[in-house]
């Protein structure tokens, strides 16, 4: 073999503390090394040209570059050697900058270490083999999980881009949290009015298949070729027949059914349509409260339904879909604030969550948009808003900021004044976080135009004073005094957490999630919608707290990623994957058992069972190679021999 070695000075970055010329000279003594040089900037255009020239001039069939970390320039130099006609895998790098010159002061030690790392690379290279990528087809269809505003945006953009979309929504209607909001900041325009049309587009778009009241059961496969099992939960109403006329909901006798859509601010019926603009506008039976199921007799809805859509014996159904990419947009839930016993732990009817307040303010809500107290239906005069309940609070395991509470609290204060002109709102805050466009101006308006009292401090406790009001014991840290307010209504800006079941979904998607169940993007700054699993993208709050504009933007960003992925007809698979030497394989199945990706299957070859790697599924971790006792399965480009060569280069007594 004829190997060329290039020791990069990287200006003084390496040259400063490593004697590059000496390293090059030592390298010339290594086996198979026929050429060594120490250019000033190897990655620069002339540096790369020099490599190409050397390859031709010295008929090199392998190149080692000792410079910065391979995580930076490996792709660059691989292209370089490729241009000169070598296989891109006949190239190795030695990291003598981040791992040598930048961390060691002693030039002699650095030089010696650099030389050893070059030796390491040379020994590895001597065991390298040319590898060729394989290409495979892509199923140009995308699965969007979650029908909130982020998911809707992603679905619509993909669909408009000509990609068939499968949209899966856990609830009976899409719209997510935004559909529950009365108005939106900072424009104070009606939430339903701006979201409604988008929801309708979803329903009418030829490219979108919507599975509402459904959940993702299982996901297998890999980028370009995922297989998804979807559980369509039993609604006990045949949606193909249901016209959404609502006759059933009027006649249903169980009128005390808790209303999840309205955040339990009022009762609903056992058979129900979430809200007037629901998409799909179909009825669903809540079996837990339906007399037919609880008592075994009733059947009113079945009698009343003009299309005979009611079917009490409906079962869950599993459907399977093939997709090439997945967008997760599962959103958030409120944390369980009842851990705050000092706020009554949920025992006080007029201490409510901000989301409940939205429903109370909403025209489609239980009070028809009249702000009244849940306890006695009276109009509140003094309303206290408390921020950061379950945000920035380590004592309840929620140290993070929920991002948008400051803004909607200001909005709710403003709306309160609009609804009840003679009311007075107080907001207890720690910091006002209003970095968005027109946001700070909005919070200022809440103060300056709507006379909201912003009080800088937390609230220690809330308790009923015995004549229908609540004593709010707070502090004004700017004043440096405790303060006390007698309030008619207290609204808690409850912090958010990843929506229920996020970790389980993450496991199915094979993407990582943080301590609080939020999904992890693959780079905080540069890959905000990608995940570490190819073909899986993120949109909305499932990735971290963000408001509507940001969620919509991320929805579109995810869609762009999907469209870019589908722009190619074939995908290339990384050739750095495991390969089975069938002579050595005894079919013990250990590799199959521990492969994290199910990338190894048992096949029959000449009557014998053997392991076989599914090239497109294998991610190249090498766990199988470390598992196989007879070394029958080897990870290309990190084979036992290649690593042994490196070990031996370092350890030979």
């Amino acid at each position, binding site marked *: 073999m004829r190997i060329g070695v290039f020791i990069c000075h990287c200006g003084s970055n390496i040259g400063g503390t490593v004697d590059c010329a000496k390293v090059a000279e030592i390298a010339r003594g290594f086996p198979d090394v026929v050429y060594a040089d120490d250019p000033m900037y190897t990655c620069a255009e002339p540096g790369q040209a020099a490599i190409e020239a050397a390859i031709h001039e010295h008929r090199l069939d392998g190149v080692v570059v000792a410079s910065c970390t391979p995580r930076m320039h490996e792709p660059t130099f691989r292209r370089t050697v490729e241009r000169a006609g070598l296989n891109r895998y006949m190239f190795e790098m030695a990291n003598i900058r981040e791992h040598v010159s930048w961390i060691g002061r002693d030039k002699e030690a650095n030089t010696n270490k650099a030389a050893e790392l070059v030796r390491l690379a040379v020994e590895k290279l001597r065991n390298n083999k040319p590898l060729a990528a394989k290409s495979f087809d892509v199923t140009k269809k995308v699965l969007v999980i979650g029908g909130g505003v982020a998911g809707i945006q992603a679905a619509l953009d993909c669909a408009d881009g000509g990609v068939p979309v499968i949209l899966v929504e856990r609830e009976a209607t899409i719209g997510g949290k935004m559909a529950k909001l009365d108005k939106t900041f900072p424009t104070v325009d009606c939430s339903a009015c701006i979201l409604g049309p988008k929801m309708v587009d979803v329903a009418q778009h030829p490219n979108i298949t919507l599975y509402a009241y459904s959940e993702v059961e299982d996901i297998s496969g890999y980028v370009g070729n995922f297989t998804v099992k979807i559980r369509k939960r039993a609604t006990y109403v045949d949606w193909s027949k249901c016209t959404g006329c609502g006759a059933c909901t009027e006649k249903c006798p169980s009128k005390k059914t808790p209303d999840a859509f309205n955040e339990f601010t009022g009762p609903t019926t056992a058979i129900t349509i979430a809200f007037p603009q629901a998409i799909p506008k179909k009825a669903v039976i809540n079996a837990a409260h339906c007399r037919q199921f609880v008592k075994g007799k009733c059947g009113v809805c079945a009698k009343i339904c003009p299309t005979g859509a009611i079917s009490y014996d409906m079962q869950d159904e599993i459907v399977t879909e093939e997709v090439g990419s997945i967008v997760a947009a599962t959103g958030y839930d409120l944390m369980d604030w009842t851990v705050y*016993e000092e706020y009554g732990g949920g025992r006080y009817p007029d201490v409510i969550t901000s989301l409940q307040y939205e429903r109370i303010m909403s025209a489609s809500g239980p009070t028809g948009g009249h702000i009244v107290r849940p306890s006695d239906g009276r109009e509140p005069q003094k309303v206290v808003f408390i921020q950061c309940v379950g945000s920035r609070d380590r004592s309840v395991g929620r140290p993070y900021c929920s991002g948008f509470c400051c803004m909607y609290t200001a909005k709710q204060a403003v709306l309160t004044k609009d609804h009840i002109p003679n009311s007075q709102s107080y907001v207890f805050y720690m910091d006002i976080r209003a970095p968005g466009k027109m946001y700070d101006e909005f919070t200022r308006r809440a103060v300056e135009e709507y006379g909201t009292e912003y009080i800088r401090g937390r609230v220690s406790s809330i308790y009923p*004073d015995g004549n229908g009001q609540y004593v709010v014991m707070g502090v004004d840290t700017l004043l440096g005094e405790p303060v006390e307010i007698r309030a008619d209504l207290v609204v808690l800006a409850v912090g958010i957490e990843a929506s229920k079941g996020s970790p389980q979904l993450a496991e199915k998607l094979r993407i990582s999630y943080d301590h609080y169940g939020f999904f992890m993007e693959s780079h905080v700054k540069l890959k905000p919608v990608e995940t570490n699993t190819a073909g899986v993208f993120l949109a909305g709050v499932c990735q971290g707290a963000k408001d509507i504009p940001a969620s919509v933007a991320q929805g579109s960003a995810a869609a762009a990623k999907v469209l870019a992925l589908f722009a190619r007809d074939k995908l290339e698979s990384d050739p750095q994957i495991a390969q089975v030497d069938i002579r050595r394989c005894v079919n013990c199945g250990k590799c199959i058992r521990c492969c994290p990706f199910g990338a190894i299957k048992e096949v029959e070859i000449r009557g014998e069972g053997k392991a076989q790697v599914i090239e497109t599924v294998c991610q190249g971790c090498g766990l199988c190679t470390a598992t196989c006792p007879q070394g029958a399965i080897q990870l290309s480009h990190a084979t036992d021999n290649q690593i042994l060569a490196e070990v031996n280069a370092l350890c030979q007594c």
Partner: protein
Amino acid sequence: MKFAYYPGCSAKGSSADYEKSTQAVCAALGIHLEELPGWNCCGSTPAHAVDTELSAALCARNLDIAAREQAETVLTPCPSCLSNLRHAAKRMENPQFRARVDELLDTPAAAHFPEVTSVMQGIARVYDANAIAAQVKKSLKGVRLAAYYGCLMSRPPEVMDFGDPENPTLMESLLSACGAEMVDFPLKTACCGASFGIPERVMTARNSGRILELATQLGVDAVVVACPLCQMNLDLRQKQAAKEADAFFRMPVLYFTQMMGLAFGIAPEHLGLEKLRVSADELLRKIDGAQAGEGDR
């Protein structure tokens, strides 16, 4: 059932009635309280306010006695004593601290101390609600009560182990077992002003005032307490509180043991009710009335 017993100084003075009723109720329940021989003051607030090790030393002597008596569990009626004893025991788990404390003692304290808990938990440990109900001769039916625990009983939770530190409910369960109607009393763990009654009257007046105000507002027949200092501040100092709050209170403040005693049909004089500054006569009449009412039906 037998427990070692640490009455605490106030039992021999300002809260003799607490002591009396505790003894009476425990007797009625067949719980035998074995007073620790030669116990001394736990040091109360002043000791730990002055020095943690001094406070621990005073407590350690008592715990040591209990250990030598081979007691398994020591009951004490007073939350302050309880807090000090439990804190001392916890702090003594740290060897350096223990060493410093041993220096102050005649002989190094026993390696392991028996557990100390409140009389209330002691009773609840032996009798569940039904068992208590079974003891009731005079149901407290129709009597509205506010349970007030004070700030020490449940705090800090990791030391006191008394249920939810913001919302303990043990007293409620005991007294509702006696038939009483327990109101949700949000200030149940608020501070009454503690021992500052003497050096800084306004402290107790304000804080006790707030508590009495809410109790009055909620229209309860009495506030039930488990702490001698709380009782003193809410009862004996009720006038001071009223003056500070510029209000008028007539709120009987009884120990939970006195309340239970009444339910068990024990005579008021055996429960030290005469020591109450704000008389409980009306309350007693109400209870008897309820009984009469029961009789009619």
